[in-house]
């Protein structure tokens, strides 16, 4: 096979990044098989029945019914050995970081992680995303992981595929870890770094009374709230919401900035955003140079109207 896509189980269903990885593999071209491991392997295969793949290989062995690094890396190693894919592709999730390097070491296959583009060679970010790097390998086989949103799950080509279940050889001594059940913890501080939608407040909000407008907008959009430095310095929002060179770095799907001028100290914290929608009164505001959508207008006028319109959309 040309490409083996290793899937991830996200509490019973296919992880979004696995679908993105499939879309990526399809773009690369060739014969593609997907690998589903664990107690939910069949369910994951089921989700892919309408996708254009050669097959989904399912493996459900007691020792890998739920994730563990020892078991998963051994299973993937065995599949690679028996199926000989030229390329192994996976989403760059926390789980991938946990076990894929083990596979790389077991088989001496290079693992190129966190890729942001395959258009013109393999590109990943280096030096805190200040630069991009073109990575090459002369190895016969390679493992690639794609950064979130490098490919889009909507781009998965439809079609059909078969499911094939295989047996693996696993000795109980292989799995040395004892895992407890995963649990959720109150995030406490908002995790802006992994937020998909962010509404961000700048000095253009003018007064503390207007801050609630931004939070209302965020609520109706299901977004997190961040702010530029001057807003935090004025004490209008908590400091953990600060985005920029001395705050957090974010890379949401949408960064919706309100009254932010776009000083370089702020912009370095948002460069990874997939889409930037900026509202600012000043047509020369530097933020417009990096925005995808630039709204020149008074945010105090626009936002209440936008919230109302969004509410209406929601009710529809």
């Amino acid at each position, binding site marked *: 096979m040309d490409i083996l896509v290793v899937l991830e189980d996200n509490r019973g269903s296919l992880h979004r990044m696995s679908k993105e990885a499939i879309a990526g593999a399809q773009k690369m071209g060739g014969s593609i098989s997907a690998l589903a491991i664990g107690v939910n392997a069949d369910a994951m295969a089921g989700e892919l029945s309408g996708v254009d793949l050669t097959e989904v290989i399912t493996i459900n062995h007691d020792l890998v019914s739920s994730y563990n690094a020892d078991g998963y890396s051994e299973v993937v190693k065995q599949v690679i050995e028996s199926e000989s894919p030229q390329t192994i592709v996976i989403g760059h999730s926390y789980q991938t970081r946990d076990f894929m390097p*083990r596979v790389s070491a077991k088989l001496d296959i290079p693992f190129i992680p966190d890729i942001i583009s395959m258009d013109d060679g393999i590109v990943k970010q280096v030096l805190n995303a200040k*630069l991009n790097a073109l990575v090459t390998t002369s190895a016969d086989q390679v493992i690639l992981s794609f950064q979130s949103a490098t490919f889009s799950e909507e781009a998965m080509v439809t079609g059909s595929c078969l499911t094939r279940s295989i047996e693996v050889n696993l000795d109980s001594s292989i799995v040395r870890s004892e895992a407890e059940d995963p649990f959720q913890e109150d995030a406490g501080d908002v995790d802006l770094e992994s937020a998909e939608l962010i509404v961000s407040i700048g000095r253009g909000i003018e007064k503390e009374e207007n801050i609630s407008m931004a939070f209302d907008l965020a609520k109706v959009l299901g977004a997190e709230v961040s702010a530029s430095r001057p807003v935090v310095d004025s004490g209008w929002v908590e400091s953990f919401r600060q985005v920029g060179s001395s705050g957090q770095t974010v890379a949401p799907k949408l960064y919706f900035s309100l009254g932010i001028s776009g000083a370089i100290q702020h912009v370095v914290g948002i460069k990874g955003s997939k889409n930037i929608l900026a509202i600012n009164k000043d047509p020369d505001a530097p933020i417009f140079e990096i925005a995808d959508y630039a709204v020149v207008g008074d945010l105090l006028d626009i936002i209440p109207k936008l919230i109302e319109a969004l509410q209406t959309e929601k009710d529809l």
Partner: protein
Amino acid sequence: MKIAVLVKQVPGSETALPILGNHNWIDEEQVSFVMNPPDNFAIEEALLIKERTGDGEVVIVSMGPVRVQKVIREGLAKGADRGIHLEEDGQIQTDPLSIAKSISSILMDENFDLVLTGLQSDDTGMGQTGVLIGEMLGMSTGTLAMETDVQDNAIRVKRELESGWFQWVKLPLPASISIQSGLNTPRYPSLRGIMGAKKKEIKVVSPSDHQTDAISQSIDKVFVPQTSKQTEMIEGNADSAVTRIIEILKSELKVL
């Protein structure tokens, strides 16, 4: 308890990054270097574990040119016991498998109970070295530890999962663990620590004693990310702006 902490010296985040003439890396002569920030948490965790268990040795290990001895000394100044410097000449190695093979070959004989690393390096950001070494040395592995709990011949780590989920995993020793940033507060070195660091041993391993020839991946070129940004200007009154925004959110960005 014998703990190795793998640290890396990386370009400081505040510096401009001039690219070499042949474009294959940055011009290291013109940048300032610092301890890889995530590694500070790994060093601190190692020192805390040593303090909690009451005995043990913390060894700082780093690979790179002579300048990396500075970050090894920083670790020593904070309280680590000794250092190991795998010397590199010429340009730094960027292939994780080669790096891991080099380091494993040197760590092998020392029989460490724990190998700790930061979550990834701020230069190449491959995020694999600790796990690769764990596999090569037959250790159990864990990543993104938000908390550690050393027990008898084992270590429990609280792995960070995505979206606010966590999981405790118990791993037998020896184990290689990557440490998530923010789990502790790295200490400052004391004046005495700085003075004492000069007297602690740093074993230097010459390139021929650790370098592997096989390179499995390499960085051919680095370049400034191009933003082919087309900015759509939305003008007009508030109402028309709102209409357009809704359309963008709904049909183009599909976030509604």
